[in-house]
């Protein structure tokens, strides 16, 4: 398959900068897969897994927030966090999940609950992706 260049950046650094054959991202409106020569696109990214294919090999990652932009052939995924499966600290994610579950039960107002639910979703996504090495 034809390869194309993508950049994946987070505030903590460049997570990926190179050629891929495909990029699959869970956007807020469902999965979107980008192949070479994709038309211009803009989508907001939610919490979930992403997948890149390099030399026929699939690599999974957990993404949280940000957006996906394709402009003039430049593909960029600007995320708040982006971790490849092998970078995920499973133990930490499980602890975060337990903490978030407790926080949902203890939440006093809507905002607390919303924050805790978002945390839970992130932890769950990490745990799920960690098993997809």
């Amino acid at each position, binding site marked *: 398959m034809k390869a194309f260049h993508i950049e994946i950046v987070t505030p903590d*650094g*460049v997570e990926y900068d190179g050629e891929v054959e495909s990029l699959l991202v869970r956007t807020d409106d469902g999965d979107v897969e980008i192949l070479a020569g994709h*038309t211009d696109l803009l989508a907001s990214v939610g919490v979930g897994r992403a997948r890149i294919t390099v030399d026929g090999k699939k690599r999974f990652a957990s993404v949280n927030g940000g957006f996906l932009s394709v402009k003039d052939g430049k593909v960029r995924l600007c995320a708040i966090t982006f971790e490849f499966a092998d970078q995920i600290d499973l133990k930490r994610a499980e602890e975060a999940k337990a903490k978030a579950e407790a926080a949902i039960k203890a939440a006093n107002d809507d905002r607390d609950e919303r924050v805790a639910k978002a945390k839970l979703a992130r932890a769950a996504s990490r745990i799920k992706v960690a098993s997809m090495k």
Partner: protein
Amino acid sequence: MAGASMNDIKSRIKSVTGTMQITKAMELVATSKLRRAREKIESSRPFHQIIGEAIGGISVSGEDLVWTKKSEAKHPLYIVIAGDRGLAGGYNANIFRLTQMLTAGKEAKILPLGKKSLDHYSHRNADILSKKFGYVSEISVGDALDIAEMACAGFENGEFDAVFVVYTRFASMITQTPVYEQLLPLESELTESGSIEPVYCGNPEEILNRIIPQYVGGVLYSTVCESLASESAARRTAMNAANKNASEIIDTLVLKYNRARQAVITQEITEIVSGSEAL
């Protein structure tokens, strides 16, 4: 008489040496903090640049989006990033000077980040949006997103008509420049030639409403990183100068002390000699 002045000089040498020890320690701390802060800049700069490029050309033809609406910035919000501590040369003062120039003649709201910034504007009874962010060194990506959400909400409901961030750009180890950047409204390039409108996954307005707070948060976080590095660098330079001054002062004081000591000895010898001659 001479003995008293010798003691004076001695105690001054002691005090300057004490000060120098402190400034030396501060320089070392600033240097090690600077190293970490520079690593952070290195990693956040690409995000700042790429996110700017990606958002820069956003256009929704025919629609007047709240995010791109041109404004005169009559009652803007200024997010002012200064340090948590002083003794960093002109670092804090430069930021406040720039902000004052920018806000002159406007009904500006201020969102101070950092203890010095908070103190400065509380003291002057400025119109402060939130006092929650007293420690700039502890601002995380999550905090930056919270701030961005607050700024975007205020912008959307018309509380302010523009959002700027005032921070110090880390140009190099010796140069840090206070600068400002417009966060909202987005400076879109809606030219007649028109960039081709991208395909939106879903309702364009909804997407932008979700993306823009994250964009603002991302840019804000990287400006915080720049500011932190600039603060450490400014402090390092200031402390380096303080060290040099201190060692210069000590040198002249030691010279003075030795002269005074010699004068005392000479006087004593003269006294002894003249005493023995008198016998």
